[in-house]
Each structure stands twice: as C-alpha cells, then as structure tokens.
C-alpha cells in the first residue's frame, strides 16, 4: 500500500513537473542502471543523474540527493558525490530478492521530491546442470533429464542441445513446469552416437553441463512384454510354463528378462536367476514349484547387455501347478468305546485332513485297512475323517492312506492292542516309550524316549580294529554295540593299548564316537589294543587286537627315492647336453676326422674361385664354424696366423724356387694344411702333383702349381681356396645356412615360401565358397518382393559364407601385395640353392670361365 502511495506521489510529481515545463513524462533525473539484476550477496552501485533544468528549477545539486530503499532512507555514508549532477549509492551484500530503490532530492530545504525509481532484482547465476541422462521409451521420442542445481530465484532457461558428429539437431527448450527434463521432437536414430548437453541461462550467466555421448540404443526402455500367460504340465507338477509376446524392439536388439513370482497371497516376490533369462525368448519354464499351488508371475525386459532401462513390469498372470500325490500321511488315532460287550468292542478311528502343502491336490478319499493278527484284511474307503468299526478283542493293525487325482500317500500305521494287553517289562532291555497326546479334534505330535527298567553292564565288549596305521599313529574304529548286548546306556568307552614290554595306557572316549586316533606311537613296534564299553552299571572288555606300526611313514620312501631319481636324471640330462654341445670337441679327441685325399679335386683350389662364404666379410665368423669338422687346431692356426703364415709360406716358396728341392718338412711346419697330414710331408714329387688322382700330394701339387704361376697373390688364396672345397664337401648344410644368413633377411625366403603354402592351402576351399556366393548373389537379381521375404533369412547365410570368403581373402590380402615379389624371390632362392648344390661340381668349368686358370 505504501509503495503504491509512493508511486502515486511520484507520478503526480512528474505530472506536475511536466505540466509546468511542458514536456510530457520527463523525469527530473535518471538512475543508472535502469533494471538491474544482481547476484545475491554482492555489492551494487547505482548512479542518479539530475537534469540541469531540474537543478535550476529546484535550486539543488547532487549533494541534495537522498537514496531510499522502499521507505528507508539509505545512510549518507553509502553515497558518493561524483560531480555536481550525479551521485551514486552502493548497497553492500544484497540479500533481498526484490528492492525498490528511489533517488530523491531535498527541495526547499526539507521536502523530498522523488526523481526516479528502479526495481533491483537479485538472484544467483545457474549452477552447472549435473547428472544429465536420457531415456528412449521404445517407439517414443527421447527424453533427457538432469539435476539443475541450486535455486537461482531468477527465471532460468534450460536448453537441451544435441548433435551428431555430422549434424546438429534442433534445440529442445524446457517447459516452464518441467525445468529438469526435455523431450526432443525427433525420434532418435539407433546405432549412431550422439552428443547431448544442456545449457542453463539466466540474467546472471550461462553454464553448460558436461557433454554426454551415447548411442540411443543404449538408453532404450523397451515396451513391456505383452500377453503373459501361464500354463501347467500334467507330466510335472513342479513346473509352470510362461509365454509372452515381446515388444517390436526385439528385431533390433537382444533382450534379457527379469521374471518374478510368488504364491498367491504372499507378499514377497521370488526371482528367477537372471542368468537363466539372459537372452531373447518368448517363453520360460519355471521349475521347483510346489504342486497344486497358485503362483503369480510378472516379467520385464531390457537390452541384453544391461545398457538402458528395464521396461515396466508386465501385468501379473497366475497359474496353478498340476496335482501330485499327497506328500505326507494324515495324523491318525483311535478311540475305544469302553462299553464293549461279549468279545467285541467299538473302535472309532479318526484322522486330520492334510494341509494343502501336503495334500498336493484335492483329496478324493481315504483308504483304511484293518488287519487282525495273521488274518484277513478289511478295506474301507471313506470320504470323512473318521470311521467307526466293530472289532474283536484281538490286536489289530490299521493303515490309512489319503488319495487324490494323481495318487495316494504313504500309509500311516496304527496298532490297536488286544483288549487284555498286560505290560511285562524285563530288566536290562531297552524300551521305547511313546506318548501321544489326544486332543478333542485328534492326536497331537507324539514324543518318544528310550528307557531301561534296570541297567546292567554290557554282555559283550566292543571289537576294536585299526582303520589306518601310520608310523607314529593309528586310527582305531569300532562298531556301536548292538542294542541286545548293551544292557544299558553306553556312557563311555576306554581304549587300552600297550607294547609287548611297556605299560598299558588307557584312554577314555565319549560314547558318541566310533573312531579314535592313537598318536605318538613308536614306529616298527607291536601294539596290543583292546576296548571296554561302560554303562552306568559297569563295563566289559572286548577282544584284544594287535597291530604293528610300520618302519616308514607312507610316502617317506617315495619322498627319498623320487628326488634321488630326479637328481640322477637331471645330472644325466646335463651330461648329455654338455656332450651334445661339446660334441665337436669330443669327436675331435676320440675320432678326429681325417679327410680322404682321394676325394679331393685339385681344380677346386682355384684361386679365382671366390669362396662362397666370403661374399660378405661379416659372415666370416660363421664360415669359421664350418671348419670344426676338419680340425680345430688347424683352424686356429689358420685364423690366427693366416697372414703371417702365408707370408712365411711365400718366403718358403721363394726359397724353394731357389733350392728347387721341395722340403716337405719345411712346408709341413709352416703350412697349416700339411701340419696335420703326415702324408703330405712324405710327398716330395712336385711333378706328380699335377695328377689329381695321385695319392695324397695335394699340398705339393698346389705348391708346384703356384710355382708355375707368379707366387704372389695365389699363395694367399691357396690356403683360402681349400676352405670352400672342404666346406662344400663335408658340411653342405652349413653352406646353406651361411647362404641364408647371408642376405640379412635370409630367413625371409623360407618363411615366405611357407606363407605361400598357407595361402595355397586356403585357396582350395575357396572354389566352393565362390559357388555358394554366386548363388547368393543371384538372389540380387530376383524380384523385390521375394527379396523382401527372404531378406531376413539370407543375410545370415550370406554372413556365414562371407566369413569364409573373408578368411580366404584376408589371407590373400595379408600377403597379397607381396605374392608376386615373393614368387620371384622364392625363385631366386631356389636358384641359389641349386647353385649351392652344383657349386662343387662346377668348379672346374668356372675356373676356366673366370680366369682361364687351369692346373697344369
């Protein structure tokens, strides 16, 4: 009311002013800002600017400005005079949501004239929306929801934005009444990831939530399974079969289910184990149910992988399991009418109806049979729960069974004692005394107890025997004494055991045990053990049993023998491995390899023939290995001193040239080849060496050969040239290996060859795929409708065929780009191999070709 008054005054004032000045609605000044929104708790400053003409008219300046908040005048301390026309006010810690702020001037000394007024609105900027999530109700549009954060006190707009990687969708603006959720106006596309975020904006700011990226199919809430129905089975009374109709989304995604059931009237639901219903289906058989019981079921479903939301629960459906035969017998009792006459008595038999969980169906009747002592049977079929019969005074046995549609229960047996039954109880006999309460509506549950008139010690002791005998322990066992010989309640047993010489030891054992373990026995000792059973009245010993503890515990021998054997085996293995690794050394020592000179070929020493393994100097180390078969000593001599030795031999050759006399001893001492071959030293016929078939003089042959040449370079190559000869003859496989290593990627040709084999193997089944695929492709040409009909079936078969096609193609693709090159490489490798094999034989022609050098 007061506010209204203030504004009325202001309006009137303005009207007067305007009227007097002649300008319509022209206030005397202005407040800046005009419609401010400030954050709660912050400071706010407003400036009031007076107009010159007003100031002149009223004779005021900025010093005359008075700020008011509603009716309260703001203290002068909060004012700041900016200049003659303007003054500001600062409000600290704004806490009210809505403030009327006016700028007034004091005219004529005391009269407050309102100049201008503003409404200050305060609130909070929006908080970042949290927990953004979306749900796609099957067949409906997508709805996203979020947590908007704190109250802002201002009008806050939420905008849901969504986009694909390639495209933006229209914004979704929230409705005023649901500011925390928004339903987009397009159906989401499954299997395309989309990015969604929400933007909250008000006058104080704008914030964006975290972006979420998802596939709408992972946010699906399927429609509820429809038409749930329950049917029972006559074969099995413990099962019920549920059937339902899935929602259409089963064509797009796989589903899993949640099935709950309860007996009718129960309040808690039982759950079918989820793993049993983890795949798309339209029926399920629930097992382990009780017979003839009504169950209520409900079902819901969701995407198989658990992404998304459970559908709503289906409507409940109920069904009754089929009947089973009664699982229990009725409680049964009799009543004898005391007023009996001349040898007959009237007996009333009565029983209880079975509770439903035992009846397992509708009880159609009861069958009672009466049997007199060793006499004929009397049968009765009764619908009621009682039967009155006239009996003689003899003893009778009565049986009762309940019957339903499926079968009958086990028989309940009752003995009606003879009329003149007199009790006689013997001492030391066990009696079972049973007391059954009889209520008005029948018997209660009976209670039994065992009792003796008078106990006596057992007439026989228990027979003990060993169950297991160990090195230091023995497990004893015995049987419970038969009731006939117990003569009382067995309270405890005592076990006595002793060695041949030692004292007897006694152990008390509780009567409930039938087994006892004797421990800390001495090994390899004879023990005698016997046992006594005690009643309250005394005990009786049983027969003595002897056993001998073994010398070794079980497994002890094995524990010793096995490690020893293993150790031996290991040693042998290591020895063999060592011998294997050092076989060259051993071979050299035991049977050194003596080259057969008769197999040597003189031409192969040709100095022009490049040694195979010297193609690549780096591989020298490998070729060295080739010599192991010849003689390690030689090789070492060769390796270490090849150059000086050769130099020496060069000198020697020169000397020989001078002396013309081949000093075999000299050569033998210097030449590595001759050092191990005594036969060489024996050769002194230079000329005969030219004949390659001559016995063993190849050392001298070379010698002479070089002698006819200029003995400079050839001398070095002489020792070298022998290497490939020996290599190729003795270790052809090494040569190949060297070849393989040669190229650096030496293993490649072999491997590629293997790969080629692979791809060749795989191409063989290819033909059949091709044919099959052709059939599939022919479907392409068929008419559209048939395609439509088959389309659900074909892609699967197509897919499987395709998989095979793919495998074969992938094999080809994986190696495809290389196959041609491989082929070539393979060919060249093969060539090389052929060359390797042919090399030793083709040495002679080669030397002719290469240098024309021929042994003379």
């Amino acid at each position: 009311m007061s506010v209204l008054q203030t504004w009325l005054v202001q309006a009137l004032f303005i009207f007067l002013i305007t009227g007097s000045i002649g300008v319509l609605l022209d206030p005397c000044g202005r407040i800046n800002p005009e419609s401010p929104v400030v954050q709660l708790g912050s400071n706010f400053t407003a400036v009031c600017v007076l107009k010159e003409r007003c100031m002149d008219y009223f004779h005021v300046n900025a010093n005359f400005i008075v700020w008011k908040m509603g009716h309260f005048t703001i203290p002068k301390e909060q004012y700041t005079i900016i200049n003659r026309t303007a003054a500001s006010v600062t409000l600290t810690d704004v806490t009210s949501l809505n403030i009327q702020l006016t700028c007034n001037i004091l005219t004529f000394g005391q009269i407050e004239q309102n100049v201008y007024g503003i409404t200050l609105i305060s609130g909070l900027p929006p908080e970042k929306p949290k927990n953004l999530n979306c749900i796609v109700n099957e067949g409906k549009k997508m709805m996203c929801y979020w947590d908007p954060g704190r109250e802002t006190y201002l009008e806050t707009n939420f905008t849901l934005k969504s986009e694909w990687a390639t495209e933006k969708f229209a914004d979704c603006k929230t409705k005023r009444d649901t500011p925390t959720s928004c339903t987009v106006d397009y159906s989401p596309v499954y299997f395309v990831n989309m990015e969604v975020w929400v933007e909250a904006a008000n006058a104080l700011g704008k914030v964006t939530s975290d972006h979420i990226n998802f596939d709408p199919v992972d946010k699906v809430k399927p429609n509820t399974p429809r038409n749930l129905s329950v049917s029972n089975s006559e074969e099995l009374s413990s099962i019920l079969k549920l059937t339902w109709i899935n929602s259409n989304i089963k064509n797009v995604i796989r589903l899993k289910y949640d099935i709950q059931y309860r007996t009718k009237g129960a309040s808690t639901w039982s759950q079918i184990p989820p793993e049993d219903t983890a795949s798309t289906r339209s029926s399920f058989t629930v097992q382990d149910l009780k017979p003839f019981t009504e169950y209520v079921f409900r079902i819901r479903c969701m995407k198989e992988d658990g992404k998304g939301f459970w559908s709503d629960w289906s409507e409940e459906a109920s069904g009754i399991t089929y009947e089973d035969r009664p699982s229990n017998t009725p409680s049964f009792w009799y009543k004898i009418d005391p007023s009996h006459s001349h040898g007959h008595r009237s007996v009333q038999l009565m029983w209880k109806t079975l509770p439903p969980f035992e009846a397992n169906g509708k009880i159609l009747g009861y069958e009672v049979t009466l049997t007199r002592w060793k006499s004929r049977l009397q049968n009765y079929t009764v619908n009621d729960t009682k039967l009155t019969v006239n009996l003689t005074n003899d003893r009778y046995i009565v049986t009762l069974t309940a019957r339903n549609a499926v079968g009958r229960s086990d028989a309940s047996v009752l003995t009606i004692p003879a009329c003149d039954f007199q009790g006689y109880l013997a001492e030391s006999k066990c009696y079972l005394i049973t007391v059954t309460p009889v209520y008005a509506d029948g018997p209660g549950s009976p209670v039994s107890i065992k009792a003796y008139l008078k106990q006596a010690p057992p007439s026989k002791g228990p027979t003990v025997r060993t169950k297991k005998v160990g090195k230091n322990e023995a497990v004893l066992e015995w049987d419970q004494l038969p009731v006939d010989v117990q003569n009382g309640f067995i309270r405890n047993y005592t076990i006595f055991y002793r060695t041949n010489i030692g004292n007897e030891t006694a152990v008390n054992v509780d009567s409930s045990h039938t087994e006892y373990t004797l421990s800390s026995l001495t090994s390899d000792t004879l023990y005698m053990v016997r046992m006594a059973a005690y009643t309250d009245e005394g005990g009786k010993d049983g027969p003595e049993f002897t056993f001998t503890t073994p010398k070794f515990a079980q497994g002890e021998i094995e524990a010793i023998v096995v490690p020893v054997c293993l150790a031996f085996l290991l040693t042998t293995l290591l020895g063999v491995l060592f011998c294997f690794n050092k076989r060259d050394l051993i071979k050299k020592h035991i049977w050194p390899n003596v080259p057969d000179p008769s197999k040597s070929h003189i031409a192969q020493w040709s100095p022009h023939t490049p040694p195979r393994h010297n193609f690549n100097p780096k591989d020298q180390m490998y070729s060295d290995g080739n010599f192991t078969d010849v003689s390690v000593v030689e090789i070492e001599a060769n390796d270490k001193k090849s150059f000086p030795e050769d130099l020496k031999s060069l000198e020697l050759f020169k000397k020989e040239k001078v002396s013309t006399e081949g000093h075999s001893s000299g050569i033998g001492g210097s030449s590595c080849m001759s050092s191990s071959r005594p036969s060489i030293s024996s050769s002194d016929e230079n000329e005969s060496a030219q004949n390659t078939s001559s016995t063993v003089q190849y050392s001298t042959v070379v010698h002479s050969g070089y002698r006819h040449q200029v003995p400079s370079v050839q001398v070095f190559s002489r020792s070298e040239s022998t290497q490939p000869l020996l290599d190729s003859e003795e270790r052809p496989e090494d040569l190949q290996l060297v070849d393989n290593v040669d190229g650096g990627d030496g293993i490649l040709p072999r491997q590629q060859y293997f790969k080629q084999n692979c791809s060749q193997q795989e191409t063989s089944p290819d033909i059949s795929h091709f044919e099959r695929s052709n059939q599939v492709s022919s479907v392409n040409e068929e008419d559209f409708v048939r395609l439509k009909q088959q389309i659900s079936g074909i892609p699967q078969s197509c897919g499987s065929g395709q998989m095979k096609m793919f495998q074969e193609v992938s094999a080809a693709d994986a190696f495809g780009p290389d196959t041609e090159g491989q082929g070539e490489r393979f060919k060249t490798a093969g060539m090389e191999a052929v060359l390797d094999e042919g090399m030793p034989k083709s040495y002679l022609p080669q030397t002719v070709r290469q240098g024309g050098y021929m042994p003379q």
Partner: protein
Amino acid sequence: MDLRAGDSWGMLACLCTVLWHLPAVPALNRTGDPGPGPSIQKTYDLTRYLEHQLRSLAGTYLNYLGPPFNEPDFNPPRLGADTLPRATVNLEVWRSLNDKLRLTQNYEAYSHLLCYLRGLNRQAATAELRHSLAHFCTSLQGLLGSIAGVMATLGYPLPQPLPGTEPTWTPGPAHSDFLQKMDDFWLLKELQTWLWRSAKDFNRLKKKMQPPAAAVTLHLEAHGF
C-alpha cells in the same frame, strides 16, 4: 657360449625372443586405441536396423502407391531409374573391392539415395507416412555420418560430390504418374538392396579388422629370428 654350438640354445634364444616381443604384439595389446572396430560394428548394426525399418516403411509406402505396386509378385523392368546407384554388382568385382573403394561406393550411393528419398518425403500424402519417411531419412543421414566416421578412422578422404552430378529431385512433367510411381518403387527396392549389400560390406570389414590368430603367430616367428 657360442649360440650356434647346439640347436637347443638356438631354440631357447628363440623362445626368449618370442617372450620378449610378446608385449609388443598389437593383437595382445588391448589397452590402447580401440581402432575402427567398434564404429564398424555400429555401422553394421545400423544397416541391419535400417533394413528392418525399411521393411515396414516400404510396405506402407507401396500400399500408398496402390496396385500394382503393392502386389507381391510385381516385378517391373527397371525403366527410367538409371540415375539411381545400383547395388547389384558382380560377386568377383565386389570381392576385389578394397576397403576404401567399398566405403566410398557406400557413401556415394547413400548420398544419392538420401536426396531422392527427401523428394519422396515431400510427395508423401499422409502425415504418418511423412513422419516415418522423415525418420528414415534421419536414420539414413546417420548412416552416412557413420560411414564418414569409419572412413575418417581408416584415414580415407570423403568423396567430393562432382558439381553438376548432384542429384536433384525433379517431379518433372515428363513423367507420367505411373512412371513416377515406378521410380519410387525402384528407389525403395534399390535402397533395400543397398542396405543388404552394406550389411555384407560392413560385416566383411568388421571381420577384417579382427586379425586372425594365425597372422599373429607368423608375425611372432618373424620377430623371433
């Protein structure tokens, strides 16, 4: 110890090398970038989903076109539908396509089909049909984006539409109403065939992106030496 002294040492060394290289085998390292596998799987699922969608859409639309188009044994010759990209292809040719070409063909086909389909959308009579067509268009747009995503993952450039060949829907007066319907019929049929083919294409790609175990073994052997 000389490595070549015995084969056993060589084998031991080989075994050690294999073990050493085992962590480096890409097939065994699943922690890193998942690669294009998931997006291809998604695209495959999408084609199957679209197939399913189209089945009901085509039924509705053909009913809208009326007889003889909605008759089950209607099999007209392909007249005037030459501008539509053809999905049927010789099997040998299809098999010999490389990944890039395969994806490019798919992308181009759907760009064209989408354009035609949008024309269909404008013509459709009932609101319900318009709505399902619009949703199908959006889905197809999604498929295009999906294919583009797979191509980007595999490092293939997107095909640039040639200026002038950009298909436009012209409900020209040259077409009689029947021929117009025939075009619509063929568009739907071609779409169905394309979706079927794409499912095969992406199934193939999907399997190719999971290298068979045998290749890993071979790879290891090569490392070992």
